[in-house]
């Protein structure tokens, strides 16, 4: 519960009345929209994005209510909230108790579901190998996800269904990877695995080493997966097996599939209008795609949409007014569209 309060207060503090409670909810939940991911960078809380993936609107509303009852936050109107003085003290206190683990990065690995996908592949592969190598061909899979089941089958086929060799090689890679982590994290990871001897444990059951907070245990577990991406990508040769688990979960996933298609057409020299026609999309959707591309494509070109002076103006107004509210910036720069302002703000990172 405490870790939950900590995350809520952190985000409320980062947003600092510049977005509605809905915006905060989307950040915590990791909504897959250009707005959310842009906010994540704009408010410099990108690591936190999607850290409460399973959060329901109802739980969120109840959570806010509790914070309000404790006197830690107060509502400014019905849609914005502010952290109070005692709330700020509480936030600092909790920040001494909880920290995001080393290597944890929500925007990179939670927002797009990369970490979740990697875990599904890993856990189902380990389970399947451990059962098959004991001659047990029928078992209830830990993942009901069809695509993951097909992926594991493909992996096995690629290795000519040589389960023994596969298991030993995977063991070696996992061993090497986990050795670089604290002992506590190694325990956490292996305890989550399911084999014939033992079913994986839930975060609730593993929370003891993490201040009895299942959510804190979960964040540490996700951090292990995030580090797995970094370690394996940085050293593919040392992780011949694990690197195969990253196939198809790559940088391109940072951009939604639809945005990728828009990008492809624009690179062919099409105009926004043409893309709109060709794909039958709304203008605002294409604009969202462009924001996404600006955030993630290293050589995205602003030129067709903004001049250098525009960007400078937007950033200076934003810093002068100490605001990220689009409406306030627009009042000062009426000649620019909301889209142009949003796009310019992607430069502020």
């Amino acid at each position, binding site marked *: 519960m405490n870790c939950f309060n900590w995350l809520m207060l952190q985000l409320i503090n980062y947003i600092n009345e510049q977005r509605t409670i809905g915006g905060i909810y989307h950040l915590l939940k990791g909504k897959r929209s250009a707005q959310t991911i842009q906010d994540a960078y704009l408010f410099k809380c990108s690591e936190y994005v999607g850290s409460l993936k399973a959060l329901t609107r109802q739980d969120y509303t109840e959570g806010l209510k509790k914070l309000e009852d404790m006197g830690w936050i107060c509502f400014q109107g019905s849609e914005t909230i502010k952290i109070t003085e005692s709330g700020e003290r509480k936030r600092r206190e909790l920040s001494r108790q909880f920290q995001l683990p080393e290597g944890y990065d929500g925007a990179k690995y939670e927002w797009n579901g990369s970490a979740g996908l990697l875990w599904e592949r890993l856990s189902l592969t380990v389970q399947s190998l451990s059962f098959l190598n004991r001659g047990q061909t029928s078992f209830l899979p830990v993942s009901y996800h069809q695509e993951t089941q097909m992926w594991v089958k493909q992996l096995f086929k690629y290795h000519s269904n040589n389960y023994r060799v596969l298991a030993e090689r995977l*063991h070696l890679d996992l061993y090497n990877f986990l050795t670089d982590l604290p002992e506590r994290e190694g*325990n956490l990871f292996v305890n989550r*695995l399911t084999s014939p001897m033992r079913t994986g444990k*839930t975060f609730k059951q593993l929370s003891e080493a993490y201040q009895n907070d299942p959510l804190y245990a979960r964040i540490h577990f996700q951090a292990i997966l995030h580090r797995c991406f970094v370690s394996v990508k940085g050293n593919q040769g040392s992780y011949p097996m694990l690197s195969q688990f990253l196939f198809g979960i790559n940088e391109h996933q940072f951009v939604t599939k639809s945005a990728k298609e828009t990008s492809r057409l624009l690179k062919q020299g099409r105009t926004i209008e043409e893309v709109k026609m060709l794909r039958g999309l709304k203008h605002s959707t294409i604009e969202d795609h462009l924001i996404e591309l600006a955030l993630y494509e290293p050589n995205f070109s602003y030129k067709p949409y903004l001049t250098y002076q525009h960007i400078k103006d937007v950033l200076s107004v934003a810093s002068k007014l100490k605001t990220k509210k689009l409406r306030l910036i627009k009042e000062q720069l009426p000649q620019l569209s909301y889209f142009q302002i949003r796009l310019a703000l992607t430069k502020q990172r």
Partner: protein
Amino acid sequence: MINLTELLKSKFGHDQFRPGQEEIIQSVLSKRDVLAILPTGAGKTLCYHFPAKLMEGMTIVVSPLLSLMEDQVHQLRAAGDKNVVQLNGLLTFEEKKRILRSLNKNSILFISPEMLTNDLVIRRVSGIQIGLFVVDEAHCISQWGHEFRTDYLRLHEVKERIGNPPCLALTATATSQVEEDIIKKLAMEQPVIHRFSVNRKQIKLITVEAFDKTEKLDLFFEHLKRLVKPAIIYTSTRKEAVAMAETMKEKGYVDVAFYHGGMTKEDRLLIQHQFLNNEINYICSTNAFGMGINKPNVRSVIHLHIPPSIEQYVQEIGRAGRDGQESTALLLYTKEDRAVPMAFIDQEFPTERELKTWFSVLKGWNPTTPLVDSSVMEELQRVLFIDETRWKMLLYYFRKFGALDDKHIHMERVNDQLFKKLYQHFLSRRKHKENNFYQIESLLNGKECIRKGVLQYFGEEMTGTLKKCCSNCGLTIENYPLNDYSQDENTFASWQEELENILVPYNRRGLLNETSRHN
């Protein structure tokens, strides 16, 4: 005549049928419509899985609960039948497309009622020969059953559109009223009815009334010293399930976990698997746990609240003793426990005032377009401030009484007459649910044999007497010996050792040498 027992051996690996299965399968194979009422744990799945393998054409299985469907499908697939597939709202668009494409006359398709009323699905399915149409947990189809869903009522249309294949309806709990309703709602033609007693002799029934909450808790732990594990403990709310698991742990029952519908899917699966593998032996849960879980050796089912109906009670205690061994169902309650189920009934149906408000808002409502699309409907739901379930119910009745069709809301029909109709309808539904609850309450308050009361409810006579039948026949927890559970905690060595155990065969362990390790 084919020898069914031989096929059972060769295709399913069982030596013999369990009581009732063979008769039902015979009737299904003769292509008649069949209604089968089989007690909990009697092996309903085989009644359609077996004919599906023999009959020409695809088998469609309509299943009421998503989680139940997923469990069933994965159990059948895990057991080796890869023709088993599912279509439901949990799948992505791509996955649905893939499944639809893959369908053929050998498929056994599990499908939710919502999906089966989808036009695209019906068209695809109609192109394949269909051998058998199965409705599982068919009591849900009847508005007198305990989990009535409006989506079910359109099933007979679907059945007709796909060419009226032979139909098999299965349930564990059906009063004669429900039985009639199932036949009517599914438009079954001169069905063969196989009804078997709901009585599960191996389940002993104990009910105890406690003075208050505190005494209930004391009594629970007193009973727990003698009730055999594995056990399922049912509470009325999620919060209570979580709290009870915590209390049990504090009292030294370390092999306990809670379970409810608000948990993530992964966590729910892990807890289910741990329970199936006897790694945990007590589950504190809401009614979300149990339907699809095939655990033969559950020895005790404990209710810490009063279930909303005798049907629900029978369904839930039926999760005990599937292996045929002796088991116990304990129901611990206080007078105050009636408040929660009564409140649930209250929430389910609109009051006269609410209904009036809805109608007056509707009459004054000026839709931006006379045509009804999903965004208009969403807007309307927001304006009326109705939760999802009641909204669906309202729409269903609007459709039924002609005030709504696929394109228009007919405002002129949203009148007093419709109001009266709906009000009367909801009133009688509420009465019915309340009545269901009163029936289980009077079963608990009565002095007569509980088993006899349950059987009477389903229109059965009790035959013969049972030793150790129920608490009204003289059975008490004192008749049970004290448990002697030594705490053999599943120890976790170190991650290094565990990881090696999982992945490396015994004779190759310890071979990780310095050269292959990174340093």
